């Protein structure tokens, strides 16, 4: 073993034995300091012949590097030991509860309204709104329900003492259908009576003087309206099928259209949806003719009555279309399995926590409209 090797080994040994930073620094000074042993050896290179330098240079430099590396490594190791020792004293009980943020929620009615907006946006429908305190004309007369019409009695209307310009009492809208009227009138006005296609849904609060286990004096409805050229009952049927299947996210949903009567549509149809029983609960879809299966009425619909189109300033010989109306609370109940309508309007946080939706459960077509 040459001297240089022996020197290197000596220092490496000392380094690994060094107990603390000071000892290590002393070794560094002794070996690599200005007057350190290896530093002095490096200085001898200048006096050597080129041949000697060729052989001795790498050895000495190698030793210097090895010792320097060893010192750095030992230093790192010492530091980690110190750190580890400190960290060991900093142990926390990670089972303690962290500060919690309150959890909020979206009401099922809002969620369903967003779902409807998403489903119908895909079909090209936009969302329209209108006032809840309505006048007689928009709520009844324009919808082909004149003052003496027997259908008025079926509406259980809430009235105000205030009257409109024609002296009729103002009222709370009994359905979202006045939004149809307002939308068509706006279109007629903007187009100077020429008209243009209308595809809207109008969700919102509606009111009837009715209160029992399955009726509340305030409830939510969504209206759909299509006015275009060449629209017929077949389009209505397809739209309702598409909507109901998308909403409940099942392909095996059957609809049954039954002739009915609404003054503002002609022909009119009530729409039943087929249900079946799965895991003891009534589910929309499946075989309505099977055991425990059946039909339940979910919406009213029809082709917009020519008088209604005319009342709004459009030409019923040019424009034709359909309308439908459906209870939003009921849709929510059928989809998400609530059985008590009154709970919708109580604000019970326990109910909200169970039936509400996370803020980020935004209905999207890509994610499935049902959260």
């Amino acid at each position, binding site marked *: 073993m040459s001297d240089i090797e022996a020197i290197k080994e000596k220092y490496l040994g000392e380094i690994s034995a060094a107990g603390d930073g000071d000892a290590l620094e002393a070794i560094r000074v002794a070996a690599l300091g200005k007057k350190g042993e290896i530093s002095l050896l490096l200085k001898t290179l200048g006096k050597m012949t080129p041949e000697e330098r060729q052989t001795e240079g790498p050895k000495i430099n190698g030793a210097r590097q090895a010792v320097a590396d060893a010192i750095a490594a030992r230093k790192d190791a010492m530091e980690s030991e110190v750190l580890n020792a400190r960290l060991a004293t900093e142990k926390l009980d990670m089972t*303690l509860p962290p500060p919690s943020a*309150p959890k*909020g*929620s*979206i*009401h099922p*009615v*809002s969620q369903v309204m967003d779902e409807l*907006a998403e489903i*119908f*946006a*895909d079909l090209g429908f*936009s*969302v329209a709104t209108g*006032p*809840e*305190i309505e006048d007689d004309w928009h709520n009844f007369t324009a919808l082909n329900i004149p*003052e*003496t*019409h*027997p259908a008025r*009695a079926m509406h259980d209307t*809430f*009235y*105000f003492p205030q009257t409109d310009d024609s002296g009729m009492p*103002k009222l*709370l809208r009994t359905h979202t259908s006045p939004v149809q009227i307002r939308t068509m009138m706006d279109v007629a006005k903007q187009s100077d009576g020429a008209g243009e296609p209308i595809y809207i849904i109008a969700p919102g*609060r509606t009111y009837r003087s009715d209160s029992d286990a399955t009726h509340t*004096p*305030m409830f939510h409805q969504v209206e759909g309206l*299509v006015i*275009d050229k*060449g*629209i*017929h*009952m*077949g*389009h*209505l*049927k*397809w*739209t309702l099928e598409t909507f109901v299947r998308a909403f409940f996210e099942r392909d095996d949903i059957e609809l049954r*259209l*039954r*002739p*009915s*009567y609404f003054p503002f549509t002609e*022909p*009119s149809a009530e729409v039943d949806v087929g249900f079946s029983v799965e895991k003891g609960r009534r589910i929309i879809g499946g075989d309505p003719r099977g055991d425990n299966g059946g039909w339940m009425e979910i919406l009213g619909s029809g082709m917009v009555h*020519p008088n209604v189109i005319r009342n709004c300033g459009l030409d019923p010989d040019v424009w034709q279309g359909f309308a439908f109306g459906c209870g939003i609370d009921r849709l929510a109940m059928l989809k998400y399995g609530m059985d008590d309508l009154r709970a919708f*309007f*109580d*604000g*019970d*946080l*326990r109910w*909200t926590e169970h039936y509400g*939706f996370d*803020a980020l459960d*935004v209905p999207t077509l890509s994610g499935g409209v049902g959260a």
Partner: protein
Amino acid sequence: MKFSLSWLKAHLDTDASLTEITDKLTDIGLELEGLENPADALKPFRVAKVIEAGPHPNADKLQLLKVDDGSSEPWQVVCGAPNARKDMVGVFGPPGTYIPGSDFTLKPAKIRDVESFGMMCSARELELGEDHDGIIELPADAAAAVGASYADYAQLDDPVMDIAITPNRQDCMGVRGIARDLAATGIGTIKALSIDPIARSGNGPDVRTDDSEGCPAFYGCTVSGLSNGTSPDWMQARLKSAGQKPINALVDITNYVMLDHGRPLHVYDVAKLKGGLIARKATVGEKLTALNDKEYVLDETMTVIADDNGAHDIGGIMGGAETGSEETTTEVLIECAYFDPASIAKTGQKLMLTSDARQRFERGVDPAFLDDGIDIATALVLDLCGGTASEVTRAGTPPTEQRTISYDPKQCAALGGIDVAPDKQKSILEALGFAVDGNWQVTVPTWRRDVEGWQDLVEEVVRIEGLDSVPSTPLPRKAGVAKPTASPEQLAERKARRAAAARGLNETVTWSFISDKEAAPFGGGNWSLANPISEDLKVMRPSLLPGLIAAAQRNADRGASSIRLFEVGRRYLETTEHQTIGLVLAGENRMRSWQAGSATKYDAYDAKAEVLAILEAAGAPTDKLMDFAEAGDHYHPGQSGTLRLGPKKILAAYGALHPSVTKALGLKGSAVAAEIFLDAIPVKKAKGHMREAFAPPTLQSLTRDFAFIVDADLPAGDLVRAVKGADKKLITGARLFDLFEGASVGEGKKSLAVEITLQPTEATLTEEDLKAVSDKVVASAGKLGAELRG
């Protein structure tokens, strides 16, 4: 509308099964709402004969019977009916039978120490009538049927259908009309209506109409020398199936004709009339006590039928109590009139009086059926009560003109979406009573007042053909890129709602109407319902807070410790409805915890924090908002505020609720609240997708702190705004980070510390630059009386 299968079959010749008929009814728009067979409940009851009757050993009023119901052994029955006797035939319910009229199940029992098995039943016990004076007594020849099911024997096995009649189908408010509709589907054929000529003699009664508008036609005849009694079983059975209680033959006849043909009639007891009968307008304040024993005060818009003594009938709605027929009646005047539907509706609405007659008249009865109607009724009176009929007096003319509609069979596909062969369309329409000529001019039958245009004809064809067979047709999909279908306001509302939920607020929906008491602290409501469902749900809310406060208290009552509620909905002010977010925070803001110690309550700053976050999400320019007071009297005057865009435009109000308000509304403990006026937030104009060009500044930003001593009542916001405005170019942010009040800063003073952020744009700031900015800040703050803290 309820009716039995046998009644329907009196008009409809059909081999169809009950299910086929009921399915068809629903298919054509006569929705089946109920189906019952009275025989179902009576299945266990048997025709039985009393073979022995003797006294009960321990009771005077009871008998001991041996009853043969066809079983191998006769039953021993203890019976209390006075009419029970040997050899009588009645109806027996063996042990185990459920008695529908008494709602119990028979068990073998000991009655006064004697065993009794089963029961001989009264009519009331079987829900076949009111009679409970004795047990049912069948004719003696029923003995041949002993052991048979009583329901079969009495032909009670007759299912009753209950169908919903929509307001447009007056023609189906009689069984015959329903039969006609069914016949059009091909399920059967309608039987011809044969009315035998009636032997009439003597002049018709003195009737006339002085109100050709309200009562265009008034037909009448009398039948004298009759004797009123009970109506026959077949008629009673039909009336019962329709849910009508049989009264006496004359009343039953009018009800029967109404239910059979949709033709309301009225019968007067001639002995109680004075002079002729006139249809006329009532006089203002004229009074009439109707058959329901209620007195009605009439006015000049209402049509009455009156004699010399006054009004006896609210025309077409309800007869008077005084002149109706009774058991003792011997001469009647039968009224068959046509009343104007609109007048009937108005009168009915005004009087809040509904009746079977009103329902039919206001929907428009067949104006061409007056002669048939009066003949059918007269024939029944003669048949059931005897007597002699007079000629018919026909006053006025019913409006029998028929409407003709130009139709094109192609319209069926164009509107109905289904191709039905023209021949088929024609046959459907004809089966329903329409006349169709070679040019498709369609004449509407007199009983279909609802059919006005070609669209109605399409409906007729489609409903009979079957709506279910209309093929689904996809809506045309518009070419090009889908346009956004939500308005900017709707998008802002959606974001605000979800931001609120993301911040831990729970969305609720509360009633739009509240009580007067709840509205009062919020300035009262402008809209009070004239006909509220209750005093609690009466006034359209001027604020979302009362409903939320009530919901908060309900939750507190249920033990919720931290209540964070919000609602998105409208406030109803005098002229407009305002879309608003309301929120209430009550109970504990922070629960007690091992880190933070004891629980803390919500304060007004918590409400402000929610407001700012929600406004930000809704797209409001929160950096431009200004703090103002005047949040409203329902807030704590010193712990509330508004956020405004300019002095007038209030975007939100928030604060601690005024203690007197929470007390008045029953909320225990304190609460903070806020309302965000969504419709006040300026709508962001769509500027396309491109953002303004931007590169992050290359120069480092830096911060400097300033502490000022100011008057204690100086709003901190004013100081921060002054500091921030000191150098609009360099100072990009100013944030208050410390507030201190105490002896060291002096009485009536406080210390506010503000950190400013400086963003150099051209060159690194020199000491001189910093000094200059610093001086500006101090000078600007100085204008508010702020002194830099030494």
